[in-house]
């Protein structure tokens, strides 16, 4: 005979069975599912936790590639002392710097013409371009160990150098001789190979 208690127990047991009832999935279907879930978790974690390297992302990105045709004739090293003064003209500080400047010509502007059994080579003036003035930042030494804006220092040094050497006749003459020798040494064997009767003359700068 069923009592209320036994009825309740039966109901409870059935409820427990329902609560504990698991889907009846075979193991062969579970394993691939587990693998797929695992791969997704690993890949997602890798993406989420990977830190892009700033250094790798911007190192060696070439911004600009320019074809140039400069024949470098002479490199002149120099050492300078820059004296800083206040409004009253009193010296406040001074610094030392080193660098070098390169005289160049435009190789494209070399002109070749023929004379009487003569190959005449005309080369433009040698000059200094701002980009060919190089200051060694490491060389800048303040006498009193004063802090300064490096870029401003570099600009000051570059201006100083350009003024000193653009019109320096001694170094300019040396640069012209260097260019002349280079071109002559390069062209003469070829000309002689074409016709041994020819000689090569090289003129640098404006013709007088």
């Amino acid at each position, binding site marked *: 005979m069923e009592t209320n208690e036994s009825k309740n127990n039966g109901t409870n047991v059935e409820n427990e069975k329902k609560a504990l009832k698991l889907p009846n999935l075979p193991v062969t279907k579970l394993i691939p599912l587990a693998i797929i879930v695992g791969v997704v978790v690993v890949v997602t974690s890798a993406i989420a936790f990977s830190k892009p390297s*700033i*250094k790798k992302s*911007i*190192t*060696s*990105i*070439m*911004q*600009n*590639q*320019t*074809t*140039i*045709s*400069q*024949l*470098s*004739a*002479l*490199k*002149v*090293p*120099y*050492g*300078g002392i*820059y*004296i*800083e*003064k*206040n409004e009253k003209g009193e010296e*406040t500080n001074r610094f030392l710097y080193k660098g070098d400047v*390169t005289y160049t010509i435009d*190789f494209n502007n070399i002109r*070749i*013409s*023929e004379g009487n059994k003569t*190959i005449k080579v005309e080369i433009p003036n040698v000059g200094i371009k701002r980009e060919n003035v*190089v200051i060694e*930042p*490491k060389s800048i030494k303040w006498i009193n160990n004063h*802090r*300064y804006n*490096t*870029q401003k220092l*570099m600009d000051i040094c570059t201006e*100083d150098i350009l003024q000193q050497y653009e019109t*320096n006749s001694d170094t300019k003459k*040396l640069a012209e001789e*260097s260019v002349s020798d*280079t071109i002559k*040494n*390069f*062209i003469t*064997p*070829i*000309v*002689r*190979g*074409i*016709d041994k009767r020819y000689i090569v003359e090289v003129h640098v700068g404006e013709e007088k």
Partner: protein
Amino acid sequence: MKKINLMKIVILTLILSFSVIGCKKSSTTEFSVEEIKKLSELRTLECTFKTVADIEDKAILGVLGTRKYFVQYNAKIVVGVDMRKIEYDEGKKTLYIPKAEIVFANYDTSSIDEKDKNAFLFFSIDQARRNSLLSESLEELKKNVVDNEYLLRQGQQLAENQIRAIVNELYTIAGKEPDLTYALK
């Protein structure tokens, strides 16, 4: 009140001591004749790279360790050939052109941009050390350019084209067809 005014003065003094001071130019430049180097580099290709350097600043008195960060900057690299090394073999009618190399490399100080820097007042900027680290970074970039070879090949080809143009002009003047061959030295 007095303490606040004093603090203001101290802060202002500190700011002024780090500011750029206007200066008048006066320089003496030494000219070293003995060290002049005669060059014959034919520069054919110029490249600007954006790259980074690892910088490390030390804390004042070295107590608080170091601060590390990246500095991004532009570097210019020029590729060319040494014209003095050109050789001409009259018998073989061959012009030997030397291999292209890096003839110039420098970084642009105005392009320096600090990345990932943690602002921390107590770290001093050691300018000499920073310049040294930037130079090391530049050397690394040069090495990468050499290992990569692409730019050197480009520079080589441009140099050959330039030299060939002049040689062809010589043949034209002589009224002959160019019969010179070119080879890499």
